[in-house]
């Protein structure tokens, strides 16, 4: 039943992709059919996923498929279900958002059939990735997902930065795929590519296989230093696509990593350390880069890098828990990572959708052009506020749940670890998480404060209007989801518990998940009680305050300008100036370019400050690498010099060399 539902869902996405593909550019039919097919496919798939969560895993077994070594084997187990769940929910909501969000594009005569075709392929590809039980089928889903998202990024292909972003994205994803191909070749050297037959023929390959998996899947997930495509691709794509890409697509990298390291046997400690380190690096670098960006979607993209880092740290703690034999740390680490996977998909897509709404309403995503939007777009503003609070890991919203669990894992390591074994990773994780938390707070108070509060900094922001219902609905739904998942955090533990059980068993270190889950649940329940009481108390206090003020004079005046008589919106703090102390502190690592126009003279007129932070990884590593390679290849062009005599000579030399090599 479950499997049938999954197949129906996949076929719906296929149909939803193929039918618009054969329609004329901007037909009304495809504009309706595309999202309807997507939502329908998601609904059916969701039913399947829920069924599997209720009644246990299901496998289709190997169904013949023409491709060599391929089979149509699909199945759903807790791990698949956990990742398929956000894929379906978020895709459906973002499809709804797209109905309204894409209207300006459609009005400009953009090819909406193409958009919906690729959107459906993207969702279908992601679902296929999570449920495939054959490596070739997995690859098919993986590549369909990559290609569909590539075309979606390219949706506005007339613009040069978009094309550049799409190129970077496709190349990055292809490099990742190359590693995955090699990995699959190793895992499948037994002959079969069905998951049941995957294994490493030799234990000594495990290390290489792990590294390949980390690089291959980490590229998709966006671990530093493979993250460079995220800040390019996410801002370039339409916002609902960025929401899907950032909210759920990058998680397929995490899924792939876990799914395939399960085939590599018990994890040595260095795997956990590596993941922890990569996670820490991604987290800190990601949030710092996010902090120093002033373009909303670019900032959100970097923040995804940070969150993937948190997930990576959770997984690292989990793996170290297994390697060092600390069951509680293993459980809590994995659980924290998985909870964060679920939660991040909700709040990050929420934020991207809100960013899309902002762009539609104001025509810009530059924070320094925005301001005062909360009054003009109250629903979007409230949703963005919810998303920001959630992403900073603050109660009572859902970001807190995963981070708290990850903290618990780290503190458990400190508490129980024998000697320094568990303590060292624990304290590293704690320090990292704390730093990230503080920086994330800085980052999102900046985003929310500069964009939504104060006075508009540009005419576009001043004339913004609240967006269409189809865009508001997903925002409200996702905000509510943030709140519910935050307050009902302990219920989510039940959702990830079987996944952790499956993982730990798979790694040959079965953990009594029930016990640890109940501990985590109790903490989260207390936290929820605390959150609810805080909310109640705040409401009460606000009530008291309003009663108190009811009889007093409450007057409205301009903001106090410290004595300056005629303040203007342009005098407000900007994103650049807000972030400057922190970016200054981490300046050498970030390479922030500061552009300061100091006021001068007796009657200074114009002064300004702005900063711009390019990606250090791109600028200092990838660009030199690629230009270096290009220079080398340009030099190689000399062998195609055009002189036939020497061409013939090269034949002779090749002959002589071959004779010398093989006969000499």
């Amino acid at each position, binding site marked *: 039943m479950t499997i049938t539902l999954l197949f129906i869902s996949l076929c719906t996405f296929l149909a939803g992709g193929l039918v618009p593909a054969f329609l004329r550019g901007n037909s009304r039919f495809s504009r309706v059919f595309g999202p309807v097919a997507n939502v329908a496919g998601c609904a059916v798939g969701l039913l399947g996923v829920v069924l599997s969560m209720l009644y246990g895993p299901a496998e289709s077994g190997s169904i013949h498929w023409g491709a060599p070594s391929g089979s149509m084997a699909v199945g759903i187990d807790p791990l698949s279900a956990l990742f398929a769940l956000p894929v379906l929910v978020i895709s459906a909501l973002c499809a709804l958002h797209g109905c309204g969000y894409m209207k300006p594009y459609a009005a400009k005569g953009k090819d909406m059939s193409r958009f919906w075709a690729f959107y459906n392929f993207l969702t279908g590809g992601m679902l296929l990735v999570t449920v495939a039980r054959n490596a070739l089928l997995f690859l098919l889903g993986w590549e369909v997902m990559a290609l569909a998202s590539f075309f979606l990024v390219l949706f506005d292909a007339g613009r040069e930065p978009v094309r550049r972003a799409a190129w970077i994205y496709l190349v990055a994803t292809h490099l990742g795929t190359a590693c995955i191909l090699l990995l699959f070749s190793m895992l499948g050297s037994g002959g079969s590519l069905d998951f049941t037959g995957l294994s490493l023929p030799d234990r000594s390959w495990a290390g290489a296989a792990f590294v390949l998996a980390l690089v291959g899947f980490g590229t998709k997930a966006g671990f530093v230093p493979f993250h460079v495509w995220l800040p390019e691709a996410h801002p370039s794509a339409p916002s609902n696509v960025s929401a899907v890409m950032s909210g759920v697509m990058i998680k397929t990298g995490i899924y792939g990593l876990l799914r395939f390291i399960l085939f590599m046997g018990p994890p040595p400690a260095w795997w956990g350390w590596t993941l922890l380190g990569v996670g820490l690096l991604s987290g800190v670098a990601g949030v710092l880069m996010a902090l120093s960006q002033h373009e909303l979607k670019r900032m959100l993209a970097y923040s995804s890098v940070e969150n993937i880092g948190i997930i990576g740290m959770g997984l690292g703690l989990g793996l170290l828990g297994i390697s060092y034999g600390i069951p509680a740390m293993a459980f809590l680490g994995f659980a924290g990572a998985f909870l964060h996977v679920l939660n991040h998909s909700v709040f990050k897509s929420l934020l991207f959708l809100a960013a899309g709404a902002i762009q539609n309403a104001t025509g810009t995503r530059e924070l320094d052009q925005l301001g005062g939007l*909360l009054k003009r777009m109250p629903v979007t503003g409230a949703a963005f506020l919810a998303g920001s609070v959630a992403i*900073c890991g603050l109660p009572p919203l859902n970001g807190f749940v995963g981070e708290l669990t990850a903290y618990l894992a780290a503190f458990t390591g*400190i508490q129980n670890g024998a000697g320094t074994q568990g303590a060292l990773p624990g304290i590293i994780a704690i320090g990292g998480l*704390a730093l990230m938390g503080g920086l994330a*707070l800085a980052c999102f108070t900046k985003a929310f404060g500069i964009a939504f*509060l104060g*006075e508009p900094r540009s005419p576009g922001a001043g004339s913004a209007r609240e967006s269409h219902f189809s865009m508001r609905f997903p925002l409200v739904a996702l905000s509510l989801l943030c709140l519910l998942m935050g307050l009902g955090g302990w219920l989510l533990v039940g959702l990830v518990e079987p996944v952790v059980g499956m993982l730990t068993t798979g790694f040959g270190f079965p953990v009594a998940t029930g016990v640890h889950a109940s501990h985590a649940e109790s903490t989260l329940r207390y936290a929820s009680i605390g959150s609810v009481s805080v909310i109640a108390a705040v409401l009460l206090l606000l009530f008291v305050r309003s009663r108190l003020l009811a009889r007093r004079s409450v*007057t409205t005046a301009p903001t106090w*300008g410290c004595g300056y008589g005629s303040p203007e919106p342009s005098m407000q703090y900007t994103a650049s100036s807000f972030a400057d102390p922190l970016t200054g502190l981490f300046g050498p690592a970030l390479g922030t370019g500061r552009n300061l126009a100091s006021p001068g003279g007796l009657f200074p007129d114009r002064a300004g400050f702005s900063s711009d932070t390019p990606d250090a990884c791109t600028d200092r590593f990838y660009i030199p690498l690629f230009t270096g390679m290009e220079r080398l290849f340009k030099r190689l062009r000399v062998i195609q010099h055009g002189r036939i005599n020497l061409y013939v000579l090269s034949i002779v030399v090749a002959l002589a060399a071959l004779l010398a090599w093989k006969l000499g």
Partner: protein
Amino acid sequence: MPGLILFLSGLLLAPLLLGVTVRTKAAFAGRRGAPLFQQYHDLVKLLRRGQVMSGTTTFLFRVAPSLALVVTVSAAALVAPSIVSPGWGFPGDFVFLLCLLGLARFFTVSSALDTGSSFEGMGASREVLYSALSEPALLIGFGVLVRVSGEMSLGGMYGGLGSGEWLSAGTALCLVAVSFFIVLLAENSRIPFDDPNTHLELTMVHEVMVLDNSGPDFALITYGAALKLWVFASLIVNLFLTALGGSSFQYIAWFPAGMLLVGVLVGTVESVMARLSLLKTPHLLAGAGAISVLAFILSTRFLQ
């Protein structure tokens, strides 16, 4: 029950602690200083007034003071009883506590940005800078306590520490206390991080964020700030009280003395130090983090 007493006394006496600090500073300066209960007068005065709101602001500006106060009260509720009731709290409650404080900070900062004032924006910017650096110091410090006590709730942590732990890991615990104290100074806008009595907006941190608040809202903020200092102080005092290893009553008896000491200490620091330049303050906070890490390393050495 003793816990409740501690909590309620905290709510009542928090403004007094500020009074102690102010008197200490006055003593150093050779002045008589404001009365110990000046804060209470101020609060009552503010609560009686009406309000002036900036036209730029939104609901955030109205919600933030209440929220910040509620969060601080909950923090007090978590921290205050921990020294006397080892069963108080839940595993990871201190993380929850810090997250709650983060929530309050989010709203305070947002409400500062809500006014659109560049001065308040500046204050907000500094606030997040300090918090980002103080949080690791604080959490790693808690890590040491977890490590040494073997417990993961505030009540359990303080309950799990005794003279034995002080003997074996006293150095580490002292270092934690130092680190906490630095964080206390930063989080509560004391010198050398911030000068609460300055009159130049450009040099303020916390005060500049609430330039536009007035009346009851400002009362809530002022009271909240006092309570926050109380909470942080009690974290430190509780830590040292565990060395006594006595009964709850002993703790309750010694607690006021401890708080007084902290108040005087803060006042002393404020009197003997100048406000650090804004560029240098992050280094001090990073130093606090380093001290925490050092404490942790020591704790792992002591408790193999």
